[in-house]
């Protein structure tokens, strides 16, 4: 199919929209430590979709969405109820609700498939998603629900921040935490449900979590994280969906999921600030600085025992003053390059610049802060 094809445009736009909405709203779930909410809601939504069809006989996306939202939300409320009123932990409660609801959904689908009525065909597309069935009115529905969700998030921004960070404090300043907690869950249910047609029940939670996890590596601020997660979600979903339309046999949902996951892998390694590479580099440079301070300090202390600060010393004397695993050869090399020390074969001495450096760091320098 060509890139300008109507279906392709709808699929790619839909995917981008989906990535934007789930990515940014998923950030709230992740910082709330409820990453698995995506899994629970999407699995719970399956019987909701089927029940909506049984009750109405209609296959309009609006009806499906309503069914998914209602039952998905009920599922989440059941989990919260179980956690509050029993000894079950969140993950246990979630796992049991998820399997029961998902099983119920599968059972209803199988049952319907055995009935002679052919109109049920296509319900199973919600399992793994089927982007090809996406139509323009679906995009419209996604857009409207996304706008409603974003509106609520932006409107009550202060509330979300303080409530997620410190619920007791939020309550003490007059925020009805339980009510807003339920509202936030509802917003997340919306985000999840709109993705079911494209990505499907099984893979939906990745869309919610992955962009936020990636974004956490790029920023330390909630607002920035949401924007970054939205952009990562949109770009990677768009790329994944477009790729899947260009190569025959590539399923859209899974390709999108993989594409989003790649963004996570990239961020984990290469993000500035919190990425592993970045941390490695800054840790290494801090370590190098510390070993240099140690080395020059040893030279300095030795020099105090002689009249001339530049009195040369044998390497073995220096080694005695340093920790066991100290990389002496490397540090001597760097110290020489920096001009702190110099040598005559095996005899090393402190330079003027080195002396200055040692004096500056005599009291531990800037190693500590209160």
């Amino acid at each position, binding site marked *: 199919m060509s890139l300008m094809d109507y279906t392709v445009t709808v699929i790619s736009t839909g995917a981008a929209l989906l990535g934007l909405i789930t990515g940014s709203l998923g950030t709230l779930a992740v*910082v709330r*430590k409820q990453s698995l909410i995506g899994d629970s809601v999407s699995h719970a939504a399956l019987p909701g979709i089927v029940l909506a069809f049984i009750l109405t006989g209609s296959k309009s996306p609006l009806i499906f969405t309503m069914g998914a939202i209602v039952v998905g939300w009920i599922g989440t409320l059941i989990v919260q109820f179980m956690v509050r009123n029993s000894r079950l932990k969140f993950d246990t409660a979630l796992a049991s609700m998820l399997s029961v609801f998902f099983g119920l959904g599968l059972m209803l689908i199988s049952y319907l498939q055995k009935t002679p009525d052919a109109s049920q065909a296509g319900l199973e597309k919600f399992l793994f998603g089927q982007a090809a069935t996406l139509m323009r009115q679906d995009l419209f529905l996604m857009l409207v629900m996304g706008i409603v969700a974003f509106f609520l998030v932006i*409107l*009550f*921004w*202060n*509330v979300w*921040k*303080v409530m*997620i*960070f*410190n619920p*007791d*404090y939020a*309550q*003490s*300043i*007059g*925020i009805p935490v339980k009510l807003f907690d339920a509202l936030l869950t509802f917003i997340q249910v919306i985000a999840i449900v709109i993705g079911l047609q494209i990505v499907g029940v099984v893979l939906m939670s990745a869309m919610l979590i992955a962009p936020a996890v990636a974004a*956490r590596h790029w*920023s*330390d*601020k*909630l607002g920035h*994280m949401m924007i970054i997660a939205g952009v990562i979600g949109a770009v990677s979903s768009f790329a994944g969906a477009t790729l899947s339309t260009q190569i025959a046999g590539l399923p859209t949902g899974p390709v999108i999921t993989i594409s989003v996951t790649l963004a996570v892998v990239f961020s984990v390694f290469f993000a500035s600030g919190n990425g592993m590479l970045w941390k490695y580099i800054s840790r290494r440079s801090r370590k190098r600085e510390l070993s240099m301070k140690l080395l020059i300090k040893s030279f300095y202390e030795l020099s105090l025992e002689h009249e001339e600060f530049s009195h040369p010393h044998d390497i073995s004397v220096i080694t005695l003053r340093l920790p066991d695993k100290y990389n002496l050869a490397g540090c001597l090399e760097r110290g020489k390059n920096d001009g702190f020390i110099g040598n005559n074969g095996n005899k090393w001495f402190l330079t003027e610049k080195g002396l200055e450096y040692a004096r500056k760091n005599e009291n531990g320098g800037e190693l500590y802060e*209160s």
Partner: protein
Amino acid sequence: MRNTIVDCNDLTVAYREKPVLWDIDLAIPAGVMMAVVGPNGAGKSTLIKTMLQLIKPVAGEVRFFGKPYREVRDRIGYVPQRESVDWDFPTTVFDCTLMGRYGRIGWIRRPSATDRKEALEILEKVGLYEFRNRQISQLSGGQQQRVFLARALMQDADLYFMDEPFQGVDAKTEKAIITVLKDMKANGKTLIVVHHDLQTIRDYFDWITIMNVRIIASGPVEEVYTTENLHTAYGSRVRAKLEA
């Protein structure tokens, strides 16, 4: 006699059958700096949380300035225990301080330029100005405690409840915090502080409540802070505690 600004009547709290607070009657006068002491499990935090309506009592009521909590919320500040939150939350020292204004500006309005300016002044006061843009997990325990203090100052309340503000801080930070607290008291604020270190009671506080599920004694430190009362609260462990 000074005005009573916190008045607890018959306050009782229970977790499943077991009473955690039993029949608490407490009158706290305005302008005091009061320590709440008692052994572990005495219900000190529970008492504070119940007063602030975070825990629902089985019986009894609390009035502030003669009114129920929700009518005077803006005049009451709260410093929770440091361990009660996840410091990995993506926010900065400055942002966290601004949260102290959320109670007053409401759910929807954003902090104004004046609010921001005041937050910076407060950060200066608690010695965190240079850390204002740091993510809150990249702070020491003492600095985190001061973030909570800054947020409380931002509330600009008349009455403060503080749950172990000296928990896990070094001597230098403790000194910095107590200076701020004494300054607050000098400005007419009333402070109610859950405190663990019996050594410093006389230096820091002028009023004290000694409790262990029930109130054992409450009043001026010089009258109430006696070995006998401590003995009743802590049992025989009190000597070890005082000598520690």
